[in-house]
């Protein structure tokens, strides 16, 4: 059976979700593998959210926020960036490919960029193959 990646995308309300929405209202086509979760700010995305997404079977996790300097709450996206860099290091130690986690800045006007990102990230994950975290963690040996 063909592998259909499941991707969880955390999108900030002010820029990235609006950007994704613009892709939709402009009728751009992009891969249907991305499940969007709207959060108020990329600074709201706790490491727990991302780790739980993987544990529950996500093959990839996308995090999008406003461009640096554009955060609706001044600093949220910088916090997100710093968390992301720590998390990358952590998941690598846990044996998870760092490519499965991606951070991109998408503004409210970048519908096209969002569609392209959804396509390219889906392709990256498709090449990596299914994530084994869920099945590994379900088994105790």
């Amino acid at each position, binding site marked *: 059976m063909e592998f259909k990646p499941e991707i969880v995308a955390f999108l900030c309300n002010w820029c990235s979700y609006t950007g994704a929405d613009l892709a939709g209202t402009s009728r751009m086509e992009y891969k249907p593998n991305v499940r969007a979760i709207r959060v108020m700010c990329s600074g709201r995305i*706790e*490491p*727990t959210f991302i*780790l*739980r997404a*993987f*544990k529950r079977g996500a093959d990839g996790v996308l995090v999008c926020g406003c461009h*640096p300097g554009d955060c609706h709450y001044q600093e949220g996206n*910088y*916090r997100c*960036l*710093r*968390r992301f*860099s*720590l*998390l990358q*290091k*952590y*998941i690598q*130690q*846990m*044996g*998870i490919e760092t490519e499965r986690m991606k951070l991109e800045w998408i503004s409210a006007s970048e519908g096209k960029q969002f569609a392209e990102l959804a396509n390219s990230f889906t392709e990256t994950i498709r090449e990596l193959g299914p994530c*084994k*975290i869920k099945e*590994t*963690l379900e088994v*105790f*040996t």
Partner: protein
Amino acid sequence: MAVYWGSACGGCCVSVLDVHEKLFDVIAVADLVFWPIALDFKYKDVENMPDKHIDITLYNGAVRNSENLRIARLLRQKSRILVAYGSCSHLGGIPGMANFSSKEDIFRRVYQESESTVNSDKVRPLAEYQVAEGILELPEFYNDVRPLSQVVHVDYIIPGCPPQTERLLEVFMAIATGAELPPIGSVIGSGTKAQCDECIRKKTENKRIKKFYRPWEIVDDGVTCFMEQGILCMGPATRSGCGYRCIKGNAPCRGCYGPTPGTSDPGAKMMSAIASIIDAKEPEEIEKIVEGIVDPAGTFYRFSLPASIIRRNVS
């Protein structure tokens, strides 16, 4: 009362002995019916007890092999109240860091590759071995280390590596005098806030960190918050109750009391906390500061890996 050690260093059992002469108060109200470190009872003595015969069992140590698991189940059956005592049975503890490796990694290192080992026949321990006199048995070594609550129902948790002996006495006396007990599943003998709320070191509201130091790379001034000096301290993500004894001894908190109430994953919480105080906005600069945290997984999950969200290395 019974005390048992699973995969443990023995420190928890010693912390029970640390009640000193208060032990007489304990044995005035309770018979010690099973305690491998101090008393000569056998597993069969426990097997022969009626169910729920033991009022309170303190199980310390993680579940690492089939013997730990068998006795955990046996003691659950024979005990009215089963307490996960200490970090290992609470969260996996130091032995839990073995979850960064697989059973095969560990056996290869220990029985073949370690510098002091000569093992040309590549002999490995077996769970069963046939000799002329019959079959010899060893407990089976599992691939995963588990906290107690992942294998049996646990009534209460007393955290710490080891738990503060005073807290144990309070808990024990509460049970012995029939005082009202907290809801089943509670973490007892500890506080409800974070270490930072109790710590007396000097703190400022806006922490800003440009560089992380390992403790031997910097001279601690003995007064200022460790984090503000750039030394990683697990205080923000760790439950209070120990009386910040490491910090009083001028060592940063390592997180043995486990996550604060309402937090499931202390490492994830710690990553959040640290991200908030790194003083940089440019990706390259952030990378450089984060490089100073040499082993995030081992530092943030030193005592809690098997109980965390990603509870083992998955590769």
